[in-house]
């Protein structure tokens, strides 16, 4: 899937440093499936002389990420449409082209059950006319989708997809992830401004307001994890969640009061950051025009879509890494399943959750949206920060103290949750229209 | 359940927090303020019970927690708090009575739009009073003492739109300040001679034998021991605060405040602070000082009782009765039985609070009619108030055996009887016993018996439960506190383990029972058998001895006396000072001024030509320079930045070409 990078000493790496992975295979579990990606990588890059190998490794990682997540994107769109269809009691896309092969007529028509839909969509997007509005800023108009996709892809680089499967092992990987993620705002702005369309621009500013608002709870929600794990490195954070208590309860952060609260806040903010329903105001296609995407068509539009799905995958992957134990198996006897399979399963579960939420919840108004972030999520995230401090302080002492921290920390987060929720629930009520029936 | 001394400070802190809450709640937040105040007092009561448990476990020990406040030159000023039985009993009493009075206030004040401030002030007062009780440093005690005075001022003047209330508040504040001056002087002198203000400090405190012996050994003017002088100065403070003769004049006027205030501050707690102070510093008091205290107390007791006979305002009567009872307590301290004083303080706090709250209930029901001549016949409509008031009255009058007042008064009389120096205070006390029973009977008869004499008392009906329940509880306590006396040496042992217990004299007890019977009997004979017909009809006693009653009714003309003496003296002094100022000093100043003017005249000639010219020229050139420089103030930010850049280049060039070493 991607390249192994483990520096000989974490402090002494330079960009895209890759170390010979043979030494690592011995330390990792030596099952074939577990090592298969690394061995594949070594089989390919081993053909090159040593000084060039890091470039090859990097290219391999890029190709792997694009291949895997490109395919994932394709089938996720299909999955989303299917799931939405099932929820809304309709079949969803099921008539994608059924190919016939002229040279093998005996095969007849092959039914694909709609599985070919993404490819059909791709062909359609590629063949549509690429319209650039007159008077648009042509360069930026072109750059915006490219930049968005580039930033979204960059975030994928530091996620450990499995044991020894991380494209770039950084000391400050989490910071890198969110620094790259913050840059997507620029692309949104570029798209809105370059379209030379006042609605696009307005929508872009609104999208920016939303992204900036939710950046804060998103950032604050993972700080507790960093505090507890004592590192900003994704690999180290996964390492910190290793092992099982009593042999069957994994040490995942989500299974602590602060971790659970952080996870929920993270996921809500992630929904907003990736413009997913119920926070999909920037491109609410059914009530506002498509926002900053209004003037885009064809493959540029597909790029935006791809970037959205990449971002969703990246944020879900980060959530898995930070809170759900990364690629680790939930139970000891399940470890025989390769680590990347576990990661993929958790990732897909989260993404399906995103889709479920999209199918279930109504959309918020913009004022409700920003209020929800500033008055609810941010205070809760800050309280959770203090909560984690309490947790850490109480875990050093006696067993009784260690037991007492569970109710204490749960109370610290639940009480403000209830209180803030009660205080604000009125403002999320449906608006009453005075003159409408 | 016991509270270690290290945490005793929590008890005053709670009402202080409640006061803070009361201060910041919005105008309408009476509920919040009152709930905070009552909650703080109830919680404080439980904590105080814990403190009492701690204190009773080691009655002889003065558990202290001292800390350094700040460094003062070479020495360190230290504060602290102390937990011993006397403090613990006071804590329990203040919090318990306070809580009940707070509850009573919710009913009494609920129509007042400033009730929120009222609870804030009450809490502030309670906090300061509890601070006085637990203080282990004369300085800390003084701080809280003054805070108590402030709260009292605020509460007496609570209805400041009434001119009398405002005047009474000022009077109370200033009169007590006169006494506090003595206390301050005593405190400074004490610090000067001992270097400490802590009461108990592991052998170094001012109340501990080393320091006391040291103070006793030093003689000042007239052969008096230093401790006598300091003790009397401190006593000045107690005189002011406890309304002793001759500074008692503020206390009856203080009844202008709301009735719960009168009950809490001017009957139960604050005025008792003086007695408490004297009991606290008792080890410091020499026999000479005690003589003064005993006679002051006796005079106050008799005088208060005499004046009370001729008053008509229900609260005034109770106020003078308070003065009288405080005199009893001082008498007890003077004759050496501070335990009896504290005992009487405790019982008095309960039954006097009860009486005041009962009076408040009556006043509340009768639409703020306070004149007993206009009341009457309230026995029927206000059954609970009547019953509880009667219990309070009997406790105050000293009806035997069942009521706590009897036992505490008995203890005092017994101690006075045993005083070797003089029996005069004892006889004055006995007289006061008769008078007390007499005027309380009069009060009962006028208020509750007979028939309603005005519209207001006709339509009186029982007060709400928030007012009657505290009355009932206090009434139960007024009876139950007898138990403190019952195993007679018990309280004595707890409070003062060193003193030996004396058996009660049966003869003395019989005598006082007889005296009480005479008082009540004569009172009933004059006022009870034939009740008053109209509000305006003449007082039966005044008809017989009009001169005496008029003199007493005018409060023995003390206010007039002060107006004629102290105020006149003050005015004369002011006039003299004014004259001195106007003619002597002013003349001198004017002479100097004339000299100055002459010198100025001489100076000006040289100045204008010589110096002035120079200054003018300098100023002109300064102004021109300023104008020139202000032209550089172009408002062009680019220009500034450019200048900075060029300056930077020049600097670097200078450093690099010329400055290299």
């Amino acid at each position, binding site marked *: 899937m991607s390249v192994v990078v483990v520096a000989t000493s974490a402090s002494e790496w330079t960009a895209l440093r890759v170390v010979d992975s043979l030494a690592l295979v011995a330390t990792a579990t030596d099952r074939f499936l577990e090592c298969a990606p690394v061995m594949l990588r070594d089989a390919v890059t081993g053909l090159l002389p040593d000084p060039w190998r890091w470039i090859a490794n990097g290219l391999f990682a890029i190709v792997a990420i694009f291949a895997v997540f490109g395919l994932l994107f394709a089938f996720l769109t299909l999955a989303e449409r299917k799931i939405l269809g099932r929820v809304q009691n309709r079949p969803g896309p099921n008539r994608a082209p059924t190919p016939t092969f002229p040279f093998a007529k005996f095969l007849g028509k092959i039914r694909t059950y709609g599985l070919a839909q993404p490819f059909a969509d791709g062909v359609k997007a590629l063949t549509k006319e690429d319209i650039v509005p007159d008077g648009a800023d042509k360069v930026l108009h072109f750059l915006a989708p490219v930049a968005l996709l580039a930033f979204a892809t960059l975030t994928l680089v530091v996620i450990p997809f499995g044991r020894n499967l991380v494209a770039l092992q950084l000391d400050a990987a989490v910071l890198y992830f*969110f620094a790259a993620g913050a840059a997507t705002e*620029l692309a949104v702005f570029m798209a809105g401004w370059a379209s030379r369309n006042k609605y696009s621009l307005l929508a872009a500013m609104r999208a920016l307001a939303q992204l900036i608002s939710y950046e804060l709870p998103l950032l604050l929600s993972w700080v507790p994890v960093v505090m507890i794990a004592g590192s900003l*490195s994704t690999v180290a954070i996964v390492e910190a969640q290793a092992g099982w208590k009593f042999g069957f309860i994994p040490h995942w952060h989500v299974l602590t009061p602060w971790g659970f609260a952080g996870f929920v806040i993270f996921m809500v903010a992630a929904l907003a950051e990736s413009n997913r329903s119920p926070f999909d105001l920037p491109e609410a296609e059914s009530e506002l025009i498509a926002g900053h995407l209004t003037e885009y068509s064809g493959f540029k539009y597909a790029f935006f879509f791809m970037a959205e799905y990449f971002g969703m995958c990246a944020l879900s992957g980060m959530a898995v890494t930070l809170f759900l134990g990364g690629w680790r198996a939930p139970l000891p006897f399940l470890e025989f399943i390769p680590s990347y399979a576990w990661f993929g399963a958790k990732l897909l579960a989260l993404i399906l959750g995103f889709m479920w939420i999209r199918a279930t919840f109504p959309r918020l108004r913009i004022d409700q949206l920003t209020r929800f972030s500033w008055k609810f999520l941010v205070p809760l995230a800050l309280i959770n920060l203090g909560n984690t401090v309490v947790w850490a302080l109480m875990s050093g002492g006696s067993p009784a103290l260690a037991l007492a921290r569970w109710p204490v920390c749960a109370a610290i987060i639940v009480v403000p949750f209830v209180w803030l929720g009660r205080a604000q629930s009125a403002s999320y009520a449906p608006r009453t229209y005075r003159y409408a029936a | 359940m016991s509270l270690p001394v290290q945490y005793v400070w929590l008890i005053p802190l709670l009402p202080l927090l409640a006061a803070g809450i009361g201060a910041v709640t919005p105008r309408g937040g009476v509920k919040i303020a009152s709930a905070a105040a009552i909650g703080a007092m109830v919680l404080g009561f439980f904590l105080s019970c814990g403190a009492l448990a701690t204190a009773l476990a080691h009655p002889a020990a003065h558990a202290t927690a001292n800390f350094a406040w700040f460094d003062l030159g070479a020495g360190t000023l230290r504060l602290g708090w102390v937990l011993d039985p006397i403090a613990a009993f006071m804590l329990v009493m203040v919090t318990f009575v306070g809580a009940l009075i707070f509850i009573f206030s919710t009913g009494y004040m609920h129509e007042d739009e400033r009730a929120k401030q009222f609870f804030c002030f009450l809490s502030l007062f309670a906090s300061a009073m509890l601070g006085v009780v637990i203080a282990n440093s004369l300085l800390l005690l003084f701080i809280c003492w003054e805070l108590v005075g402030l709260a009292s001022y605020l509460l007496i003047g609570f209805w400041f739109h009434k001119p009398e209330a405002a005047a009474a508040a000022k009077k109370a504040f200033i009169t007590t300040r006169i006494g506090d001056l003595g206390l301050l002087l005593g405190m400074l002198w004490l610090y000067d001679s001992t270097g400490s203000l802590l009461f108990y400090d592991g052998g170094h405190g001012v109340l501990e034998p080393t320091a006391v012996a040291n103070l006793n050994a030093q003689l000042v003017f007239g052969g008096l021991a230093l401790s006598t002088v300091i003790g009397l100065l401190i006593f000045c403070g107690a005189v002011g605060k406890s309304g002793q003769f001759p500074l008692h004049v503020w206390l009856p006027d203080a009844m202008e405040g709301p009735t719960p205030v009168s009950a809490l501050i001017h009957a139960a707690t604050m005025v008792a602070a003086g007695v408490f102070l004297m009991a606290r510093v008792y080890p410091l008091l020499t026999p000479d000082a005690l003589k003064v205290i005993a006679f002051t107390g006796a005079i106050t007791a008799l005088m208060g009782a005499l004046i009370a006979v001729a008053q008509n305002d229900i609260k005034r009567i109770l106020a003078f009765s308070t003065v009288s009872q405080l005199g009893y307590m001082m008498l007890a301290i003077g004759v050496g039985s501070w335990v009896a004083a504290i005992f009487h303080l405790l019982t008095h706090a309960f039954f006097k609070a009860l009486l005041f709250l009962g009076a408040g209930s009556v006043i509340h029901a009768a639409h703020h009619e306070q004149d007993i001549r206009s009341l009457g016949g309230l026995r029927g409509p206000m059954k609970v108030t009547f019953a509880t008031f009667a219990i309070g009255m009997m406790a105050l009058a000293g009806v035997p055996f069942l009521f706590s007042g009897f036992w505490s008064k008995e203890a005092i009389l017994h101690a006075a009887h045993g005083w070797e120096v003089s029996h005069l205070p004892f006889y004055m006390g006995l007289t006061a016993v008769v008078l007390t029973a007499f005027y309380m009977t009069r009060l009962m008869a006028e208020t509750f018996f007979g028939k309603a004499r005005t519209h207001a008392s006709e339509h009186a009906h029982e007060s709400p439960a928030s007012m009657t329940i505290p009355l009932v509880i206090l009434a139960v306590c007024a009876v139950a506190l007898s138990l403190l006396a019952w195993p007679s040496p018990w309280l004595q042992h707890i409070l003062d383990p060193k003193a030996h217990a004396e058996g009660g004299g049966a003869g003395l007890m019989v005598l006082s029972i007889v005296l009480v019977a005479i008082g009540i009997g004569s009172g009933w004979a004059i006022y009870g058998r034939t009740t008053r017909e109209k509000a305006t009809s003449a007082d039966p006693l005044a008809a017989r001895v009009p001169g005496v009653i008029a003199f007493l009714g005018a409060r023995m003309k003390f206010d007039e006396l002060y107006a004629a003496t102290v105020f006149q003296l003050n005015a004369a002094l002011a006039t003299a000072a004014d004259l001195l100022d106007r003619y002597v000093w002013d003349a001198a100043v004017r002479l100097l001024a004339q000299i100055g003017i002459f010198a100025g005249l001489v100076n000006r000639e040289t100045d204008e030509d010589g110096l002035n010219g120079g200054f003018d020229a300098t100023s002109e050139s300064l102004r021109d320079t300023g104008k020139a420089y202000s032209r550089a103030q172009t408002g062009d930010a680019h220009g500034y930045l450019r200048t900075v*850049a*060029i300056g930077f*280049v020049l600097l*670097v060039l200078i450093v*690099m070409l010329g400055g290299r070493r």
Partner: protein
Amino acid sequence: MILPLVIIALLTIAVAAIAMTLRNLIHSALLLIGSWAGIAAFYFWAGAEFAAFAQVLVYVGAVSMVVLFAVLLTRRSRADLEVAPDAIGRGLGAMLAGGAVLGVLFGAVFATRLDVAPTAAPTASVRAIGQQLMGAHAASLLVVGVILTVALLGAVVIASTDREGGKEDAR
């Protein structure tokens, strides 16, 4: 080792220079953001990855947004679209002053004997930085926190329209 530095430096300087000459404000701002990213790349090259990510997070993520919002909020005026009358003179003055500063700085760099570079690059792991921040520099951290808070409040106060002042403004 040197080659990436040269590439980064040239790109950054070129981007910044173009940004400073463009007439289109949005393009200028975006290019400047690019040059900030270039500076982050330099930090990365030098091994200060934490500083690099902080630079990206703060400048590319946050300051850029403020700049863009400010540009859009102040875009209406005609005067800003015209070339100022004194543009040429000011530009010349700026070039002169800038050139002088550049010359002086280059001269200083060339003339100064600098210490020989140590063979091993210093390490500043995130953990070490965190410990320094919370240990030796805790007071500075607090002060910076206060500064940021005050600056935020100050910015809000300065930029917000007060209702009473509105009339005076309309005058």
